[in-house]
């Protein structure tokens, strides 16, 4: 029936077929297909029970109308019938729960993983740390603000695109260690049937083994504050050789970045770079114009920190402010990025302090 309905809908609006998706994604792993089958099994059980119950109900509604001269009978209990319709559903439910338990056991078997990745939720981005490689980066929403505010037309991956996707190898068991830095988040990729809450102070486990390379998109699924709707998950599954290539590229990039941190930058260079960093890392709370949200997030424009001593300004960005939504950015941003964004905040957004900070002083 689902297929027929989908087909009927696709005929109605052929160009926008994907817009009318009405069922769960089957997914791209053995486990996700198993879960899909469970979903369809319980769905059809419900359909059968529904047809039977509603069938009798609508039959009664049409047949036993007073307007058709129906006269009510006087019986009002029947022990046999009542026992039957208590016992049969119980049996159906137990029969249903047994395969579900088997699937659960598969989901919980995180042993013998080939690759291990720690996934950490931050307000409102994901951090991916490869435990066996020296790879550690953040993944931010990449959808331009103009698309969200309807000033530009929306691209097909609207809100489901990031700057740095998670990269994993195909045909390898990848184990995720999921936690959070601030509030509770939840990491979900529908095509993997992997959804696990990211909870500060806890490390949850999950795993995936994807057969085919491809790009898979999901979202945070636990309300985590203002930009909960704007922290997508994008996973790029690469073939084994492409994955190895990517790993060595990441290493090379890391070396290049370390070299850059010792360079001297001009004010214009820092401000220009800082604007991009600000829009990715800061504008979510402090707003693109630096005005903040009164009562929730302070303004940058005219703030005592952004117009006061530069060391204190650097310090709050590097170490954050415990007990508030202000995160420590030392893990998220490179020294160059921190120098750039500090300089930008002091010399743009309505501020004009006139000083700048170089990346090499941040490192110390």
């Amino acid at each position, binding site marked *: 029936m689902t297929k027929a309905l989908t087909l009927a809908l696709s005929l109605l609006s052929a160009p926008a077929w994907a817009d009318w998706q009405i069922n769960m*994604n089957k997914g791209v792993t053995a486990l996700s297909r198993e879960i899909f089958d469970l979903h369809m099994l319980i769905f059809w059980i419900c359909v059968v029970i529904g047809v039977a119950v509603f069938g009798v109900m609508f039959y009664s509604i049409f047949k036993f109308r007073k307007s058709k001269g129906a006269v009510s009978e006087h019986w009002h209990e029947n022990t046999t019938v009542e026992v039957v*319709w208590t016992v049969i559903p119980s049996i159906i439910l137990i029969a249903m729960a047994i395969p579900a338990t088997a699937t659960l056991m598969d*989901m919980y078997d995180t042993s013998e993983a080939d690759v291990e990745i720690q996934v950490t939720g931050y307000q409102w981005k994901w951090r991916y740390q490869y435990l066996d490689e020296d790879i550690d980066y953040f993944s931010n929403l990449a959808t331009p603000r103009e698309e969200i505010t309807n000033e530009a037309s929306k691209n097909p991956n609207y809100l489901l695109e990031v700057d740095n996707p998670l990269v994993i190898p195909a045909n390898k068991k990848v184990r995720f260690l999921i936690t959070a830095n601030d509030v509770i988040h939840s990491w979900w990729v529908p095509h993997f049937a992997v959804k696990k809450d990211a909870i500060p102070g806890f490390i949850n486990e999950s795993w995936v083994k994807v057969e085919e390379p491809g790009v898979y998109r999901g979202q945070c699924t636990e309300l985590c504050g203002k930009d909960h709707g704007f922290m997508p998950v994008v996973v790029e599954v690469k073939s084994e050789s492409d994955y190895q290539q990517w790993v060595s590229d990441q290493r090379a990039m890391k070396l290049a970045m370390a070299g850059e941190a010792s360079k001297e930058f001009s004010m214009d260079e820092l401000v220009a770079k800082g604007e991009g960093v600000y829009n990715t890392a800061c504008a979510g709370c402090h707003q693109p114009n630096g005005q903040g949200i009164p009562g929730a997030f302070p303004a940058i424009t005219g703030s005592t920190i952004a117009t006061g001593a530069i060391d204190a300004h650097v310090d709050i960005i590097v170490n954050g402010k415990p007990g508030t939504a202000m995160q420590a950015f030392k893990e998220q941003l490179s020294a160059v990025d921190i120098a750039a964004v500090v300089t930008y905040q002091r010399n743009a957004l309505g501020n004009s302090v006139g000083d700048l900070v170089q990346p090499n002083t941040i490192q110390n």
Partner: protein
Amino acid sequence: MATVDVDLPHVKEDDPHHHGPARGLGRWLYTTNHKDIGSMYLIFSLCMFMIGGIMALIIRAELFQPGLQLVEPNFFNQMTTMHGLIMVFGAVMPAFVGLANWMIPMQVGAPDMALPRMNNWSFWILPFAFLILLSSLFMPGGAPNFGWTFYAPLSTTYAPESVTFFIFGVHIMGASSIMGAINIIATILNMRAPGMTLLKMPLFVWTWLITAFLLIAVMPVLAGVVTMMLMDIHFGTSFFNAAGGGDPVLFQHVFWFFGHPEVYIMILPAFGIISEIIPTFARKRLFGYASMVYAVASIALLSFVVWAHHMFTVGMPLVGEVFFMFATMLIAVPTGVKVFNWVATMFRGSLTFETPMLFALAFVVLFTIGGFSGLMLAIAPADFQYHDTYFVVAHFHYVLVPGAIFSIMAATYYWLPKWTGHQLNETMGKIHFWLSFVGVNITFFPMHFVGLAGMPRRIPDYALQFADFNSMASVGAFIFGFSQLVFIYNVIQNVRVGEKATAQVWEGAQGLEWTLPSPAPYHTFSTPPEVK
């Protein structure tokens, strides 16, 4: 329910020595009359339903199209949070308490509630609780924005300052509910007319008795969890703060230990209402009265051991997942029994379809659909795909809107002639029903689809693939929302004018309340009736 044969010493209760209501505002401020207090609860609930409904329409207007159009994400979160809190604690629960106040004394043959002064107090603290909660919308930082489930640490360390007012408001609502529940239990256990044994009580009375015990059991747990939040926020404790050695998952366990019985608090009285209405319009006694009572009692007991099915993705041990999956599926058995009994009541009856019956029939069908999606959600492995998506939103709105709220509307139409003394305007009632029925399904059915396709709940903006069904849901929401103006019109008109109602009102109605004249006098059953 056993047939109630009543032996009334004198049916005519409006003798001159029975004083009527006081005049002016004082009548409402100082009243200890169960009918006045019941009316105030119902009017209060209707106001909250409208305020919560406006918030729902703001949410649906923003979600009409992808992109941010009307509100900022932070305000959107305030709307989803306040909509949930107001509908649960302000609309559904007070409406059931209002119906209990009006009907329970009349259904058990009591002159009033057992504790009339406490009754007055438990109502009058409610408006203040909600004024406090609503005033947070105008505070710096805005209203609570962490969802009606207020998971820590989003609701503690990361909350707006108004969270303290929210905690105070929840305490007052909880006190009101506990007092209401004590009153209902005291009334039912002590003030039944001679001859009305427990197993002769109408089902609305039975379901409320069980609901009241649930309330007494879990409202203190809610008070406990918000107090722990208060301590974390202001007194330096770390119950839910991992950095201080606390446990954010503990919050969820405590919250859902309250929260799951809470959802039955919002549906058991509805079961009672439907079990009154269907026999009336089928002109046939309720099928399986005793099994109905046992089913409600077992649902209530099971509700204490299923809480963690709201938490399948928090990383519970495997045995925990399996236990909560099996326990949750068990609830489907007594719930199924109730639905089968309602259908069996209709089978070989003599049915008519007045407005209350239409709402009751819609309840049976749509609540059952909500039950089916509940059964699907109970399958723990599949829940990893459903959890926190619009599939869940569709599920609980199916059990709460065409479930709880349709039952409240059915009850209002069913007993309104008894309250006002005027027959219903059936045409207007049917217009309201059909608009609501169509609106509710256009709103919530597509949410199953976007949820399965992968749309998370509580997001102010969404990917393009979800656009079409979201527009559809928004259109439905406006149809449903505005059709409630018809409901308000119907009720006001019925209070003002209408054909004089008889004592019996509905041909097939059974029970003590129908032995009283319509409108029911200000004081009823001053002399208890005899139930044989």
